[in-house]
């Protein structure tokens, strides 16, 4: 089990990494599906190019946050498709980032409401 200090060493996540992990939270996806999902999740604010997407995927694969596998239902044209899914470590990293963002958000809301933290 990775200690919390080691998880926090990877934070904060970049926006691109955050949204890719968020996209994979519900189900494994292939590259184009991740691109479309990220655009939807961010309300078109974050648009990934293939270069940015696969650069982030490469780093997350190296860090063991996601896994890559062949598409069991390859398209009829036989084109190359790989699927990506979150690993338990990737899930813990994402949860740690959400916790971090939670703390920031709670502090901001309280201060905005004029209450003490």
């Amino acid at each position, binding site marked *: 089990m990775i200690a919390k200090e080691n998880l926090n060493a990877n934070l904060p996540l970049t926006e691109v990494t955050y949204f890719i992990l968020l996209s994979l939270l519900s189900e494994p996806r292939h*590259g*184009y599906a991740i*691109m*479309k999902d990220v655009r939807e999740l961010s309300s078109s604010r974050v*648009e990934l*190019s*293939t*270069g*940015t*997407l*696969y*650069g982030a*995927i*490469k780093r997350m694969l190296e860090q063991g946050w996601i896994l890559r596998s062949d598409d069991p239902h390859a398209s009829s044209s036989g*084109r*190359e*498709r*790989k699927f990506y899914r979150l690993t338990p470590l990737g899930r813990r990293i994402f949860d740690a980032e959400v916790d971090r963002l939670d703390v920031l958000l709670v502090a901001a809301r309280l201060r905005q409401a004029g209450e003490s933290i």
Partner: protein
Amino acid sequence: MTRRCLLRLYQALLALYPRSYRLTFSAEMVEVFRQALDDRPALWRLVQLELFDLPRAALKEHLSELGANSRASRGGLWVVSRRELALTLGAFAIPLALIAWSGPGGSLSAALSAALPAALLLIGLVLGAGLLKGLPRWCLPYLGLALSLVTFLVSFTWLADLMLPTVPPWLGPGPHEHSTRLLWQGLLTGMMWFSLFLVILAVWLGLGLLRRLGQFQPSANTDWTQVSFTLYGGAMTALLLLVQDYRNSDSMALTSLACLAGGALLYLHVNKPWQRLLALSAGVTMAMGIAAGGMWLNAPLQAAWAGPWNTPETERWFDAWRALLVWGWLIFFLLAPGLLKLLAGGQGPRPANERVNDEPAFC
């Protein structure tokens, strides 16, 4: 521009990525781009996003790969600790101490002669410490410096006195034409470096007889550049001898020594034998270039020497050529261990990952 042309352009631009990255991801990226082309009505937006971002992303991957390679080499055979760096640089600080000892405007040659007992002491200390540690790389420039002081100032003088009676009068020291003087200087310099090379080889072979030397000799068998690195230490003595009689010799020597130290630092950091040799050659070339340039500029400031062939203009040309001769011989003898290995039909250095166990213990 049609979708087909855009796809072909995209495929061509993927060549900007590192090879390993392309092998892993390029097919997928092409497929994703194809799907994006089919889905997106606004082609210009897609082109703007993809094609302008691709070179930036490719550069980032190249830099990432360079960093990973650098980390891998740091984790491999040629780990360079700060201690090793400091100890190696210490060798280049010794001539600086000599310059300081001679004082401003003082005689470097007198300082060099006076340093001989200290050089002998240094040989003993370095060999002792080196033997205990299995002759690590940091002690090799010390060894080269100390052996060169002994060789150039003692044994060579003895050799020269022995050989001088056999040298024809038209070639030996004395008032001659430029070309003859240069030929004599060339032979003299060659003999100096040859004698140092023989001494270093003799020391290395002699050390191989001791049991502890088994740690050094095998690594020198697989990494002949360590013999070159030892010779490199002798370049410091050659440099000081070259500029010793000149005004402003302190600043010339200081700058040249900095170049030699830079070459040594680069040698420690690179992995491949040809890279190490290039590092040493670059250090020597810059050092001798600065010395030659300095002598060229300072020759007119020298006190007039006796003889019609000692005009400042002829002397500046002569000394510049002399620096070139020293450089040429030094480069030749730096390469010599590799040439000997090739001629002996050696296997050549094994890849770094096979040499881990042969390496002497580092400090």
